[in-house]
């Protein structure tokens, strides 16, 4: 399809208006992030077929989502723009525009994969978006008062300007540009930093996030992971922070090492933060070939930071890592259990919605979400059919919902997590009308 578009583009030049992405649609949705108060869901549309001149970040009002779901589940009410799913009649399919906060979205570069949220206080937020197409680390502010995103001084459907697209380390022309293929992102609002992984180079970038000033690409460390002996590929994939403790864990697509990092501001609180590479450990207890498991595409910490879930593709498994303090002042970092997973797992979220912690894993290839109970032997508790190409997963413990971006059908699926509900672990709403890509 991409080739066809390219040929078409060569035949006649489209105007900028014609290639401007729609403000009321999802197209190849990838990254999701919820606001800390779980009132908003930010959705990245990656524009992966380059149909438009940019990607977008849209804002979904989760209260509206809940109202629609509640009415649907209790009385079967189908608002305008919504229809019962033809194949799975328990699902309500709705036009996504119904849930978008009008005029709140912005345009970004193409091929954004993930996004993360910094809490600036007072309901104000900042999104940090690794954009692979630029490449850049793009930042976008959310104003609680204006209820809209902003990444430019322009009005309307803003395209993030150069000031919001961080492409040069420390903004200094004498320093290197941001490394290509920024992929994973984690924000530590307390430390006011973000960590970005780079998918093809085994590099991590540290972003300084002063609440009252513009972010800065503060530090970078490369060569973290060994290259794959067969393909030569290497890369950093997932990143997450352990709280308390402030350590950040970074995984690889090419080896079974998990590298930890700490952040320090040696020059004082106002100085730029620096990365300190700390201990590392190996996922050496799951799978054959000396227990190596790699291509770790997701990390999430349980409440309290005492355990981490690590989602591997080789072999397909979810490993539970004991990250509790070992009495020495240091995380144990020992794999204590694991379960087999679907193939091509792509997203991971962890939440306790009232019946103990669960891990939710999206299965890109199978169109499913695995629900995994970490108690005891780490067991697959349920498997939910989600849609085509489920990618990012975000849980809302308060609302007892799971949000999953469906890359291939331009939707966000909403899964009911309410314990004991007839619809527990089932999709009840699709934000967006499923379509073939």
């Amino acid at each position, binding site marked *: 399809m991409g080739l066809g578009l390219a040929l078409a583009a060569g035949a006649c030049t489209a105007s900028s208006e014609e290639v401007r992405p729609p403000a009321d649609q999802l197209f190849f949705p990838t990254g999701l992030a919820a606001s800390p108060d779980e009132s908003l869901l930010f959705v990245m549309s990656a524009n992966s077929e380059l149909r438009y001149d940019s990607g977008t970040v849209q804002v979904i009002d989760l209260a509206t989502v809940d109202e629609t779901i509640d009415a649907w589940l209790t009385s079967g009410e189908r608002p305008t723009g919504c229809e019962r799913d033809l194949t799975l009649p328990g699902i309500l399919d709705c036009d996504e525009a119904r849930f978008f906060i009008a005029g709140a979205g912005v345009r970004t570069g193409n091929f954004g994969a993930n996004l993360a949220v910094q809490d600036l206080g007072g309901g104000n937020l900042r999104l940090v978006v690794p954009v692979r197409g630029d490449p850049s680390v793009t930042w976008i502010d959310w104003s609680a008062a204006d209820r809209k995103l902003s990444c430019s001084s322009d009005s309307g459907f803003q395209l993030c300007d150069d000031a919001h697209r961080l492409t040069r380390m420390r903004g200094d022309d004498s320093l290197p540009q941001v490394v290509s293929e920024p992929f994973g992102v984690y924000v530590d609002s307390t430390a006011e930093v973000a960590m970005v992984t780079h998918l093809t180079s085994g590099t991590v970038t540290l972003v300084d996030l002063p609440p009252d000033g513009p972010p800065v690409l503060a530090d970078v460390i490369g060569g973290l992971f060994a290259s794959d002996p067969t393909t030569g590929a290497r890369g950093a994939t997932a990143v997450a922070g352990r709280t308390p403790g402030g350590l950040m864990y970074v995984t690889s697509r090419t080896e079974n090492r998990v590298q930890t990092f700490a952040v320090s501001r040696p020059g004082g609180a106002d100085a730029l933060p620096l990365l300190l590479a700390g201990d590392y450990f190996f996922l050496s207890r799951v799978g054959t070939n000396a227990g190596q498991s790699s291509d770790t595409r997701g990390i999430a910490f349980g409440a309290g930071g005492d355990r981490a879930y690590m989602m591997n593709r080789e072999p397909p498994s979810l490993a539970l890592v004991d990250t509790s303090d070992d009495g020495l002042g240091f995380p144990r970092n020992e*794999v204590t259990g694991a379960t087999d997973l679907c193939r091509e797992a792509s997203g991971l979220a962890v939440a306790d919605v009232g019946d103990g912690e669960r891990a939710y894993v999206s299965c890109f290839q199978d169109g499913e979400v695995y629900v995994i109970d970490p108690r005891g032997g780490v067991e697959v508790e349920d*498997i939910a059919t989600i849609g085509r190409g489920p990618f990012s997963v975000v849980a809302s413990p308060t609302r007892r919902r799971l949000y999953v971006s469906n890359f291939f059908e331009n939707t966000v699926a909403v899964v009911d997590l309410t314990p004991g509900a007839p619809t527990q672990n089932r999709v009840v709403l699709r934000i967006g009308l499923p379509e073939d890509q």
Partner: protein
Amino acid sequence: MSTSSLRRLAPAALALPLAVVAAACGNTTTTTGTPLNLDRPVDIAFGCYGGLRLVGDNGTADASDPVVESAQPLEGCAQRALPTPGRPPGQEDLTGESPIPTVGYYAFILESVPGTVAVASFPAKDVSEFLGIEVNVADADPLTPGKNAIAVGDLPVAIASDRAGCHMVTANAGSCDLSVIDIGSVVDDDTSTKPDVRAIAVTNAAGDEVLARPAAMVAEPPSTDVGAACPDTAEGLVYVAYPQCHRVAAIRAGTGEIEASIHFAEDGTVEITDGDFTCPAECGGGGAPVAGERPVTLDLVEDKRVGTRRLAIGADDSPFLTVVELGADSLPQSFSRVELEGDVGVIDVALSPQIGMGGSSGSINDDIATGGQFQFVYAVATDGTVRVADVLSLGAECDTQVDPRYIRGLTNVRQLSCFPVGDAATPPRRAGAKGPGIELVAAGSPLSVAITWVDTNTEQPGPDTLVGYFAVVTSTSGQTTIVNIDDDNYEDLWHADDPLGNQPALAVPHQIRDNVKDRDALAIANNADEVAVPICSAVGPSDGGGPRLSSSVERNDTVADTGRIYMKPGVRRLACHDEIEDTDTSVYEIDFSAPQDVRDQTFPDLRAMRFSETWTMIWEGTLSRDDFSQSIDGPAERVGVVQVGGGQMHLDDPSRPFCAAGVEPYDFAVLTGCDPSNGDADCGLGMTCYVHPDATVAAGQCLPIDTADSLSGTCRSFLVSERRYAITETDAGTLTLVPRRHVLPTTPLSGCVSDQQCADLAAYDALLDTGMHPSDFTPPDDLGDWRCMADPSRTAGIDRCVETCAEDADCDDGTVCQSGVCVEGVVPPAACVPGVNRYTLHAGEAFAVLGDSTGFLHPIVEDPATGACVKDPDASPLMVGRLPLVAPPCTGDGYTDLTPNPCSTTVTQTERVPQYKADSCDRVDASGNLITRDAQAIRFQNPAFRLNIVDPTYPGDARCREDREGTLVDVPTVKSNYSLTIPLVAGFLSERAAIAPVFPVRVVRGPENSVWVIDEGDNIPQQVGGTNTRGQVFRFEPGYLGKINVVQ
């Protein structure tokens, strides 16, 4: 019926599309992969199908009895699979009648995610005749390409055979019901009959549907009466664990009616109930979860020898094991509970038969065993160990981690069979044990456990010769480990007169079985009279033997080839007389040729020597040794931030590694800067690796590119020094540093007494840096100005010889002058240590003892109240990784004399020394004299070994090198980085099945005590060279470990 009569698929159905593709691409090479028939299996159960005489009510064979092909109890196959094949009563071939058609086994392999059951077949024959090609996947639907499985339900989690052996029952977590499969409809040879699979709703006593999700299921023991026609539906009871309902329900398999349950109430009580209860409707959308134990694993054993039926239950959120007595009707009668130590849950259980413990006759001897009767539950616990409890006589958890040092004198087999956890008579645990459970070695976390046994074997004791009872444990990294429960082919007790003959780690129950052969091998050889006599040159068998030095202790001096190794600490050597060669020599106490009592004391616990590994003892070496390829005790070189202010210097590391690294006060840190050969790659953004032109050290320092040159003056003292700093206060995240004074290495261990003594020792130290004889040596004029004084940068208590100065030029290279003394590093201006700084941590005035697989052992923990690094008062005295040259006296030589550790003692040392001609330092011959002398030694013990390091000090030579006729007292000769390298081999090696599953989620004991490992498989893409198995099933025979069948 034989396996060949099963429905099968023409392989061409698979091959054809591949051929078409190949032709379309013009490629004449046809490539086919191995057909994969399984899809992520999780459980297995067994059936028997074939010829059956329906014997009628009289139970005997009559010519008039009809003979059919039918499913039947497993006993129908088991009798035919005996070493001397037999027949169940009534199934004999009758004279003049056609023989009864053959029977064969069928394995029903549950595949959870697709919700299917695959079928494999294997013959009913003696396991000794197995060739590894017997188990093959069958096709349940010949009308569909491929070898098809049977669709049974939504997310089935367990499968079991019913009592009659005619039906398989699955418990389905996705639909909260049961499915019943008619075995005959699946495996008969009739293509017109489709597999008969029926969903059975589970109902309570009121007839209401119970929609709870099952987690596990077992069936009541199978009937052994062969000769009855199959009933229309499943017979007997199945026990199903419902975690969220906190019950294990006894369900009539054919109807789904619950007849009883074991209820784990919210208040912790347990009761046996009837079927009158409800559960949260997990599949029906009703009922909120309630608290209570979550039973998730079951095992049911009928022990016909003693006439019991018992059901073991484990809960993933509770340390209690529950054992239920079942009546003849298999309904629950009573229960008992055993609490495991700690806050653990259980994810898999295996219940043994009643075992008569002890014996080494080569046969199971349950009725006459000297250790008495036990019945064990093996439980995979959430702490990553396998717990063991006796549920018969003691009703207690057994401590499997008792330190063998303490049980050598025990002679009571019953006591050895189970050391009750917490019992006052139970000896201490192994150092470093995480609890009472069995810890796998380099095998990940345990996933599943099964118990099997081998009745008899005439082979000599050896790793692969299994006789007795054994547990088989699968684990996350794909290993299948064998654990001794009652090894009836190995003596039970240790004997002092043959200490290597019956080693506790090999004899005591509940230990991982060792895979190394000939642990009792001795350094002997036959003389001319064919009598075995001691020899001194033996290195041990190449494929076995006890732990020992593999080659030689390597001693490396940091001073270039001065030949002074002889005066430095080394591993004790013992006299040895080789009776074959009739020569006297010396051997290390850790050599294979050392006396066996010494070897036993040196390596008192085979299991604790977890690896064949090389240990290094490095004087003032680093506390951590990880490089990029391993993760054991942390990176040898780390990064932190140096904070300077108010005359104080701190090293901060936000990852808080210092207690974990084992740092103690007066260790030291080295700021290692950067390696200029790497350009600026070692430095952060905007920094350069700057090397001061006056520096005599190789390391540079990362400084800002634009200010490096201007800082060269300000930072000179810092940049030209070795940047070594004594650690005076230790906190998990911060070290307080002071400049380390430059001290004469030959300062007496008991302290110096005068400046003149220091001057004399400086001259002696200068001699040590040469290879000269004392008689040939003239000290240089400029030895520096060494004064005897207190040194606040080292342990208090003695004065040391410190180099003093007026300016940097007065100090040795790498040290600089500060406040009149030479120091190895100065407190730098903050500008000299910008950004992050690399550092290493070193043991102060001690050898750092590190195993290349074990790492650095230490007792340091973080004080949770203050964050300070303190010694754990509960730590084992064996958790030690530093060996100083001064230690308190030893208090005994026994196996259990572990404190103080290290300790000082006097030992004999046998060694060869040069013999000089009179009045010269010319040697009489190259070999010298073999002498035995008393030597001071530091005894060092860790969990793996004990050894003596002799000669912490050296008296000096009077005339010639190595004459030992000097008069120095307490004068050491070691300098930084002097090292001993001790390669040890024949460490413990777990006995494992020779199979390679990816994710062996379950292990099950099958027919004839075969062991079946269910591998959920992988999906490693072919393009990166992986093998996509999609799951597989392995069968191996515990009596013939080399016989393995693989089903994919």
